[in-house]
């Protein structure tokens, strides 16, 4: 009786040890590699699990990607400049450690930026949303950026140096993109909120999906991969090739629409366009009718 129990116990322990060993290794490895909860395990989907990965002498990933999109980590040399800019422009809300705890307040009111990845920082700064015009506003709007491209990269470099994470700053290769596939993917994944014309629309609780008419290609990739604000993140559900196709569609057809009638009316839709057509057309016909039927 006792011997059977002991046997079973030892077998179970052995199996348990064998099973937990790789698990611990995996967890430890994942932690060491700085994998955060926003990342995907899918290959070629915005994380370093990509076709081409370049590392520096210390084994730190400096760029990764594939023929569709290359993601470059901002140069660590910019980090000291980035810290100065951060203290000047961002620290009053996000705190001097970028952890969302202001010097004279408690945490929780403002987002913790550590571990968000350079693409997130770059997107919010380069789209002019940060530094925020109204930190208590429901949703920040696109404005002229206060920091220039190099300064945004510098801030991203410093925040990234606190806890290296992904996605890095993307560069899409639009030359190989398929715009027709991009249109289909846009219709399925983006048009629900941004409308098929890319003009954006109102959403719940005073939020809105912004217009896509004037957004540079890099920021389109950054928004898709990082999901700013209420926008969902598109991680492993879209490959880099598919994201590249969508960006091509947005920067070509959405931003340079073909309006055979000469005036697109912002793609308001058939009802609104029909109303304008009717109002103008019938109004014109009424004037002509008035002239024809008028009597001295």
């Amino acid at each position, binding site marked *: 009786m006792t011997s059977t129990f002991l046997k079973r116990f030892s077998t179970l322990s052995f199996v348990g040890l064998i099973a937990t060993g790789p698990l611990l290794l995996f967890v430890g490895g994942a932690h060491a590699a700085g994998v955060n909860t*926003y990342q995907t*395990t899918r290959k070629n989907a915005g994380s370093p699990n990509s076709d081409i990965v370049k590392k520096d002498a210390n084994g730190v990933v400096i760029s990764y990607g594939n023929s569709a999109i290359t993601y470059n980590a901002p140069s660590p040399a910019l980090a000291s400049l980035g810290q100065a800019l951060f203290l000047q422009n961002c620290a009053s809300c996000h705190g001097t450690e970028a952890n969302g705890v202001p010097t004279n307040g408690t945490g929780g009111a403002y987002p913790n930026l550590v571990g968000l990845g350079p693409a997130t920082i770059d997107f919010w700064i380069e789209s002019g949303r940060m530094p925020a015009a109204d930190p208590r506003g429901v949703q920040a709007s696109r404005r002229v950026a206060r920091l220039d491209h190099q300064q945004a990269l510098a801030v991203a470099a410093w925040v990234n140096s606190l806890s290296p994470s992904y996605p890095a700053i993307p560069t899409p290769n639009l030359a190989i993109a398929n715009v027709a596939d991009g249109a289909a993917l846009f219709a*399925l994944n983006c048009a*629900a909120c941004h409308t098929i014309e890319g003009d954006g629309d109102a959403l719940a609780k005073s939020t809105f999906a912004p217009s896509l008419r004037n957004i540079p290609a890099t920021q389109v990739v950054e928004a898709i991969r990082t999901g700013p604000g209420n*926008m*969902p993140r598109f991680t492993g559900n879209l490959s880099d090739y598919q994201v590249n196709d969508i960006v091509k569609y947005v920067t070509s057809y959405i931003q340079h629409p073909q309006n055979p009638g000469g005036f697109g009316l912002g793609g308001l839709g058939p009802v609104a366009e029909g109303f304008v057509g009717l109002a103008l057309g019938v109004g014109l016909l009424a004037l002509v009718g008035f*002239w024809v039927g*008028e009597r001295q």
Partner: protein
Amino acid sequence: MSEMQEHRTPVALKGLPADDPHLAPAARNPQLVERVIAVMFVLGTVLMVGFGWAYWINAQQWKLGATMGGGLFFYGIGLVAWGKYLMPKGPFVEERHTLANTTQDRNAMAAAIVERGGSVIKRRKMLGGLLGGGLGIFGVVAMFPLLRSLGPLPKDTLFHTDWRRGTFAVDQSGRRVQVGDLGIGSIVTVFPEGTQDTERGQAVDQTVLIRLSNQDFTTQKGRETWGPMGYVAYSKLCTHLGCPVGLYEQQLQMLVCPCHQSMFNVTNGAIPNFGPAPRPLPQLPLYIDAQGFIRAQGDYHVPVGPGFWERS
């Protein structure tokens, strides 16, 4: 009666003297108007010739339209101006004759139909009956397409989707979704494997798959196993009128319907908290298999989409 009023009194056109003021043109300066109308006609003629030339050289369509449309436009302006300004200004009267025929004519017509036609048909009763029966059957047959246009009976298809126990969730391209694919705050539209390219798959089976966390997520009591590793799935058909509920706001944790702005909270089982939707979006129970693929535990527990008569 002043001269002005006298000129505006309607007169009969017949028998007016040639110098009657009613016959004068309406325009104060008829020579000028005539010249303007002549210019219109010349422009119209030029454009019509241009239309012929454009047609001959097979020009672009907008050139065809512009030349022909422009030509007709100038002809039209000229004709209307001619009628308005150069015709005798009137006003004239012309008495109408009565439209109805005389009583005598109408009685004769009625008599011809009733007596002559009736007697002809009565003489050939069999033919008359056959004709009437045939026309009646034609009327019945004519209703068939009307009834058929209502389509086949739905039977129990409204109660079930193609999700079964063990069905793989695939995206639009047919790729199976894996547990590591989605980051937190990601959304993807999934279908039962094999139906992603079918009409029924896209119309009925479409499901939104959202990752809410890294741990098993319970949306409601009794659904403890439905959201493995933070993956929750809801029918994409709005319970109001069946629009695709694809607007996901990852901070508000809200799914918004684009048609009538119904809003569903994805963390508590998609209970609507705004808009006309009467019921929560049905949640699809999921599990993750040994290879890490997202699969369905079974069909939806309630019918998807808007209500219908037989729905209890």
